């Protein structure tokens, strides 16, 4: 059986997310020595999120237009549950990773050595949080795709 509209929508959403946020994070993390005025800031994040929201809206409208029934049955709900569980754990791991970074930063004996290893400016911490959020979305889409194709 070919790809259903749901699967096509998931693939396109996944590609759009990877492309846009991949470009964005490449810009952020490829220039880690940038000064605070050179760093990508709040307006850039808003622009990217707005772009993603518009594209996701267009994707949803396009595939709804194709006329596939809007029924969400038990299999869809089960796949949704499993994918949200995986994305939850991804986000949890990310938040704990960042928490540990901040705690090491705050602790006296470790902070000097730590400063030479990682960057803990508020902007980069915010970008790290955003990165883990995006990763959790990618895991969410990927898990759904996997179960729709391979079974559950």
């Amino acid at each position, binding site marked *: *059986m070919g790809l*259903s509209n*749901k699967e096509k929508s998931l693939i396109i959403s996944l590609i759009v997310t990877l492309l846009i946020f991949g470009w964005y994070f490449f810009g952020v993390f490829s220039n880690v020595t940038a000064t605070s005025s050179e760093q990508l800031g709040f307006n850039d994040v808003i622009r990217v999120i707005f772009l993603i929201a518009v594209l996701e809206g267009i994707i949803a409208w396009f595939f709804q237009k194709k006329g596939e*029934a809007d*029924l969400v*049955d*038990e*299999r*869809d709900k089960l796949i949704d549950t499993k994918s949200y569980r995986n994305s939850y754990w991804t986000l949890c791991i990310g938040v704990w990773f960042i928490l540990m970074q901040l705690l090491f930063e705050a602790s006296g004996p470790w902070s000097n050595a730590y400063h030479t290893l990682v960057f803990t400016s508020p902007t980069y911490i915010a970008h790290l949080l955003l990165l883990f959020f995006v990763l959790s979305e990618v895991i969410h889409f990927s898990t759904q795709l996997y179960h*729709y194709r*391979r*079974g*559950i």
Partner: protein
Amino acid sequence: MSKSLSNNIRRLRFEAGEMTQQMLADKIGVTRQTVFAIEKDKYSPSLEVAFKISNVFEIPLEEVFTYD
């Protein structure tokens, strides 16, 4: 040796006047993709959906699904 669930839904559909997957899906309240997944043993339906399928074909559950 591990057991697995299998079914005769595809055969039963053809014997029931060549019922399509969409027609069966409409009768039991799931999507056509779910019916396809059940037939291909890629999804084990809930008890409720399994009973609905057996009611559509008017045969006992054990004649639709086998666990071996």
